[in-house]
Structure formats: C-alpha cells, structure tokens
C-alpha cells in the first residue's frame, strides 16, 4: 500500500540520492559482517537501507530487493549455519497484487536461499482468488504450501483448525516482536495463548477530510447563519459528520459542488462491510467491553442492536445528501473516483487514501487533505446494560482495525520434519525482520507501517519525505493502532461470509426496500445461520480466543 508514498519521496533532491547511494554501497559491503548492532550502528544501517535503491532512483527492481534481502540477512546468520537447510524444499503461497507481495519476497529470500541451501517454490494468487483457494485447500484437506502470506481475519480458518505451526521462541526474538504496535500484539496472531503470526503489515481505517472545506470562510458563515452547532471545523464525532453532510448539500467549494461524507453502499465481496463498521464502532465498541460485533458467550449477533441500527440509520439519513449515484458506489469508488478526484469532503478508508493523495495522477486534493482517527460519538451503547452511556472522558472513540494487516504463517505440515520446520520459520522470520519491514513500509511493497519504530518520522524525513505530510499521515495511523479502545476484528472462521451476507441486506436497506431494523434483523438471522452451519460451539470458543476473553 505504500507505492505512492514512495513516489512522493522520489521528489527529493538528486544530491540526497547520490549521497545515499554512496552510503548504501559502502554498507552493503560491510553488512554481512554485522551481527547485533550497537545502537548508533543500527540507526546508520537503517538510514542506509532506506537508500536502496535510493530516493529518486526509480522503482526498486529485483536486484534491489535481493540487495535488501542480503543486507538484512544478519539475523539469520546468527541462528542458522551456512548450508544448514541444504535439500529442504518449501512452498510459499502469497499474493501477486500490483506485482508486489510475492514479487518482493522472492528477491528478499534469494540471498536467504543461497545462504541456507533451501529452495522455495512459489504459488502466486490474485487477491480475488485468495479466499476461495485457501478455503478449498482447507476444506478438501489439500494444503499444499508450507508458508503462507495471510490476513489476520483468516486466522480462525487456519490457526483455529490446527493447520498452523506454533512460532518457536527464537523466531519471536529474531523479529523483535515487542516493536509491534499495540493492536498487533496478542491476542492478534495467537490462538489459545500460542503465537502463530509474523506480522508484515498493519491495517486500520482512518478519517480523511478536505482541509479547504473546513477553512472556507463562506461555509463558516453559512454554518453559523444556519444555526450550526459550534464552530465550523473538522467533525470529531459522527453526529457532527451527519450535520456537516446535510449542511453541505447544495453548497459549493472552489466552484465545485460540495458534498459531505461518502458512504460506500455497494457490495465489495464482503470488504464493503468494513465501512459500516467504521461508522458503527464509536456507537458499538464500549470501552468496558472487548466485543462489538457478537456477544462473547454465544455469538449472538449485535448487528441488530441499537448501536448498529443507529449506524445503518445514519447512512440512510444522509444518502440523499451524498452524490446522486452513491447507492452504486463501492469503497473503491468513494476513495479513488470520488474523494481523490475532488468529490466529497470526508471519507473513511485504509491508509491508501493518504498515500495516494499527493502523488496519484488522478488525485486533485494533494494540498488540501488532512487525516485523523475515525470520528467518535457523544454516547456509546452498552450491550451489557442495554443503555446508551455518556463517558466522563467525552466522546467515545473506537478506531476500526479493519483487516488487521497481512502476516506470514508457517503451516503445521512442516512440524513433522524438524529441519524443514526450522527452515520455514527462518524464511518467515527473515521476511518479518525489523529492518526489512522498515524498507517495506517506505517503498512500494503492499504493506503499511506496523511497528512503533516505523513511526520515527526522522527516518522518513532523512530518506527524503515531506515532513508535514508524513507526520500527519503517520500520526493518523499510529493513533489508530495504539488506541486503547480500538475495535479489533473477530478472527473467526468464515468471517467474510458474515460480511458478504450483510452487504446484500444492507443494499436492500439503502435502496429503501426494507426498513432499517428489519434489515438488521435479517442480517442477524442470516449470521445466526452461518454460525450454526460452521459450528456454534467452536465458533464461540474461537471468538473468545480471538478476543483474548
């Protein structure tokens, strides 16, 4: 997801590039001799690593990926002897989106293969084929891969069914797991207290808004004249988002029709449900309750409780104030064809909106975009008491940790062969290393920042990034990740079945075919059926495990 941040960085000066390349060349020669770094040496190493291929030197190539892989091989060399895995053959299944993911991993692991003697065979999948391929492999007992790049929502399907290998302690040490942002620490990546995942990505929805809208004097005056509550400014709560969206209908900014929040109403293979989730978490995720989508004890859906119904009703209420074809807008439309193209004042999305804003050819909002965590709510529904609470601390915020990012997992089928098991975990650990992950966050890779060390803006600025932009963008991500009331997605089997079913019913609600409460009840009934189909008792147990409850 970082390709456009990288492009932004390419705007830096040629002098910086040449300087960086010289340093990188020198370090590449000496990197193999480095073991554990002294603090300053590591900082220098990371600075030089970020100069491969160097800002302004064009997109990284396979040679660059191999160079990065070679430079970051130190940790492997500390625990693995040269040629130790000779004769071991591993199969790695992952994505080929935008020629990233597996394409980079091939390059990163080539030096590892050369050093250890192991050989890796690759299974590349398009995003759309990923879920069916994985589900079929699991259901038909034909798991034919040893290592998998996988999103945390699938942990229920894989770890919950005993198909993944438990992470050895030496791996946790090698990848420096303590550096993960809070929300990626246990229980994410764990089942029943055992750790399975090496994170290589982080995901959350943040709130993207147009700064020119909220500094427009004419709008401020109209807001005040129209009796708008408080000063005209960036909404901090969904109640304000609703009011602003209604207010903006019929107004103009910069000679263009102004619109407020952009709701994606069209199904997106289950992924569209995340966006209702982003509206609902502030209502439904109570600080005293880890659960927000199902009851913990029996998997009773909360989708038809007052909090979720209120979120759905919010969409229905403002749909008429949004662009005319909003009912046929999926999340791709709201982000890339609307918000980045100058339509709409507010949108929730993953980090891609921020990373595209300044650098995408189709973006016209690069200089007028701001970022924050998702809006909160003046009150929050307490599912345990059935009442709406007003918190003494003010509005309730609950950033939606949508999808929880990609990770690398080792399959249990390698456990019967200790050599193969060690080789698989070593390869995975190499990909999830702290320094290599920084490079992935800064260059086009398909992965967002996900470690506390990734939010050291000085490293980004030194590499050539614009400080104000990177600071704003990274803060919105970091504050979401580390929020104490973050809404963590349930990592239970078949989670996308729940989402996809909900999308169908939500479309009927948004089209005015069924009332909100009835539609929500329909979703709840469908979800109950899915839970029964998959197996309620086990779902409950896995749901508890995923919440750490």
């Amino acid at each position: 997801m970082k390709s456009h941040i990288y492009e932004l960085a390419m705007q830096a000066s040629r002098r910086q590039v040449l300087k960086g390349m010289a340093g990188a060349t020198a370090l590449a020669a000496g990197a193999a001799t480095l073991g554990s770094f002294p603090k300053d040496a590591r900082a220098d190493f990371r600075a030089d690593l970020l100069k491969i291929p160097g800002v302004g030197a064009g997109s990284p190539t396979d040679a660059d990926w191999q160079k990065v892989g070679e430079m970051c091989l130190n940790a492997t060399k500390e625990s693995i002897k040269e040629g130790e895995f000779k004769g071991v053959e591993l199969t790695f299944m992952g994505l080929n989106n935008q020629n990233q993911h597996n394409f980079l991993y091939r390059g990163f692991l080539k030096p590892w293969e050369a050093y250890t003697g192991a050989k890796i065979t690759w299974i590349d999948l398009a995003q759309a084929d990923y879920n069916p391929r994985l589900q079929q492999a699991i259901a038909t007992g034909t798991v034919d891969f040893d290592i998998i790049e996988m999103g945390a929502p699938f942990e229920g399907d894989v770890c919950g069914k005993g198909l993944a290998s438990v992470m050895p302690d030496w791996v946790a040490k090698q990848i420096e797991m303590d550096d993960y942002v809070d929300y990626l620490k246990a229980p994410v990546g764990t089942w029943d207290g055992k750790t399975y995942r090496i994170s290589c990505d982080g995901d959350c929805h943040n709130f993207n808004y147009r700064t020119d809208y909220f500094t427009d004097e004419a709008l401020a005056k109209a807001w005040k004249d129209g009796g708008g509550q408080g000063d005209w400014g960036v909404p901090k709560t969904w109640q304000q988002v609703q009011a602003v969206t209604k207010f903006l209908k019929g107004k103009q900014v910069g000679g263009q029709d102004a619109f407020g929040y952009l709701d994606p109403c069209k199904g997106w293979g289950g992924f569209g449900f995340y966006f209702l989730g982003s509206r609902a978490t502030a209502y439904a995720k109570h600080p005293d309750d880890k659960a927000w989508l199902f009851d913990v004890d029996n998997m009773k859906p909360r989708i038809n409780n007052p909090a979720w119904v209120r979120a759905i009703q919010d969409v229905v209420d403002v749909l008429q104030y949004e662009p005319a074809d909003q009912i046929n807008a999926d999340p791709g439309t709201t982000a890339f064809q609307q918000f980045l193209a100058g339509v709409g004042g507010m949108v929730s999305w993953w980090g891609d909106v921020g990373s595209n804003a300044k650098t995408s050819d189709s973006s016209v909002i690069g200089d007028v975009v701001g970022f924050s965590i998702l809006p909160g709510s003046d009150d929050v529904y307490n599912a345990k008491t059935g009442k709406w609470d007003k918190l003494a601390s003010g509005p309730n915020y609950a950033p939606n940790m949508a999808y929880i990012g990609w990770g690398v997992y080792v399959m249990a089928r390698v456990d019967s062969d200790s050599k193969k098991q060690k080789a698989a975990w070593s390869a995975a650990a190499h990909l999830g290393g702290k320094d290599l992950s920084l490079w992935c966050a800064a260059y086009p890779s398909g992965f967002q920042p996900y470690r506390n060390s990734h939010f050291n803006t000085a490293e980004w600025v030194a590499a050539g990034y614009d400080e104000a932009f990177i600071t704003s963008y990274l803060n919105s991500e970091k504050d979401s990740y580390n929020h104490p009331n973050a809404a963590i997605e349930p990592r239970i089997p078949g989670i996308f079945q729940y989402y996809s079913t909900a999308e169908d019913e939500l479309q009927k609600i948004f089209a005015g075919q069924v009332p909100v409460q009835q539609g929500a009840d329909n979703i709840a009934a469908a979800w109950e059926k899915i839970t029964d189909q998959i197996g309620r008792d086990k779902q409950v147990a896995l749901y508890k495990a995923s919440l750490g409850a």
Partner: protein
Amino acid sequence: MANLTPTTPSTTEILGDPIAPGRKAAGRALIWGATILLGLVILVQALGAAGQGPMHFDNWRPALYAYVLWAIAIGAAQVIIRGEAGQRALFILPAALFTIAVVIFPTFFGLYIAFTEWNLSSFEGRRFNGIDNLVELFHDSFYWKALGNMVFYVAMVLVEYAIAFGLALLLNADIRARKFFRVAFLIPFMLSPVAVSWMVGKSLMEVRFGPLAALAKELGWSQPNFFGSAWAASFSIEALDAWVSIPFIMILLLAGLQAMPKEVQEAARVDGATPWQSFWRITFPLMLPVSATAVILRIIFKLKLADIIINMTYGGPGGATDSVSSYIFRQYRDRSNVGYGTMLAMFYLVLIIIFITLLLNFVSKYMKKVT
C-alpha cells in the same frame, strides 16, 4: 407383402466365430478384474472417508487412476472379446467414458452436493441435509428476485432481436462501406463483457465525467444516474449486455438474409409489393428458422448473464440487477456456501431445461403453423 430381399450371411455365419472361447474368457476376466479393482478402490476410500474402513488414501486420486485403468481394460476387452467389432467400438468408447467422467458423473455428484450442507469453513465438513437447501431456496427472496430479473432480461432478447434484424437488413442492403460496417458492428461482440463493463459502464456512463452523462445532462436529465435506481440499473445492465450481444444475433440473421433466394424478393417487387409488405410477408417468414435459432441461442447465453452485473452493480441496488448466476457466484465465492449454491444451480438447471423444452415446442409448432 413378404420381404423378398435375400439376407447376406455375416462373416461369422460363414466362417464361424473367429474369436477363440479362451480369448473371450480372458477378455471377460479383464473386465471383471478391472471392475473389481475399481470397486474395491472406491469402497476402501469411501469407507475410509466415512471413518469406517481400516485404511484409506489421502485423497480420491487413486479412484481416478482406477477409473482410467478400468476404462483402458474395458477398451482392450472389447477388442479381445469382439475382435474387429471391438475395434470399431473403440471409436466411440473413449469419448463415452470421457463424457461419463467429466459430464455425467459431475452432474450426479453435483446433485448429491445440492442435498448437503457444505460450508467450506464448517468444522464438520460436508453433511447430508435432505431437502433443507430446497426449502431454504423457496424462502430466499434474493433468489426469487434474481429469477424475476431473469424474466426481464430474457424478455429483452426480443428487443435485441428487433434491433439486430434492423441492422442485418441495413448491412444486407446495397450501402456504402458495407464491408467496413459489417466488421465495425461485430467489434462489440469481440470484446470481453468485463472490458465492456469498464469501458462503457464505468467510463462512458460514469455520472461525473462520462460523456453519456454529459449528453444526458444536455438532454435535460439534471442528475443522470444510470445505476442509482432499480429500473435505471436494470435497463443499463441490459443495454450493456445488448451492446455486446446484438452483433451475434445480427451476424446470424445477416447470414440468413444472404442465403435467401433473390428471385422471391424480385418477384414480389414485380407484383407491386411495398417494402414493408415485402419484408413482413416474405423476408420475415422465410427468416423464421434462422430467427428461431438466433433467439434461442441468445436466450441460452442470456440465462448465464453474470459478468457485467458482477462488475457493474454486484447485483444491486438491493438485488434489482441480480441474475441467478451472479447470485450463485456470491454464494460460492464470497460465502463458500457450496451445498446451497449447488442447489441453486441445480434448481436453475431444471428450470432452464423445462423452459427451453417448452420454448422449442412452441417454436416448432409456430413454424409449422406459419410455413
């Protein structure tokens, strides 16, 4: 009257059976041996898969190998037992066995799957659930909505046919650049429906910057929205599909027009028939066999409509544009609901068979009536 034609004695009758009894017995033994082997492999695997047998293979691949062996043995046995006649049988036998393997068996297996609860995420795996899927189908508002939509889409084939006929008549007339237009009009049919979805649906019909939206605004539609309401979305989907497929009907009709004897038209003109009379009384009836073929083929294609819908509306808004295929796609792909999805597909297959049979009967009777 008695048949006086003398019957020719067969080679066997003249020379006696050239196949030795021992060879026949060997052939039969081969069949039995291969059949027993196939049966044993299937039995072992089936019992093993059900957790009953003493052993089982990791997967059903050995059963496939046993079937291939059995097929080879059957073919060889035909030659061994029946000699030359057996060799002749080998011209059709492999094709028949292949059809059994890839068409008939999957169909029956699919029928079995349709009566199971098989969610790929389920811990219990596949489970026979009787007619539960069928009952659920009858209560599935999305499915019936999709079936209703299919009635609309299929009915629109008649409109597509009328347009295609008009175009075919034009391209059959003596017009300038006729060859160019014949090729140009075929281009949409050469395009992938997915590409058309993007190029036309998501670009030309885009409400903000699409030229069709701009044109609609010029024509007085203040906020053009081709996919925003149920009826608009349905007609837009139909328009996209028609744009792709009208050339197919057109080219069939054009071939029919070109094959039509010119003398008939000329005789009509000599007799003073107007162009309309000439078309309605002569061309149209003579074109009925081709028209029926074109329309039936188009309906069969239409019944499988899914790609444009999945790309453009994902069945929305609220299922207004769903086809049965696009809904089944969601059940399979997004929800891994294999058992229920298969029941939807099987039920649809039965409906299609009934509908096409009735349609063919109707067309057959109509043709007899008018010709």
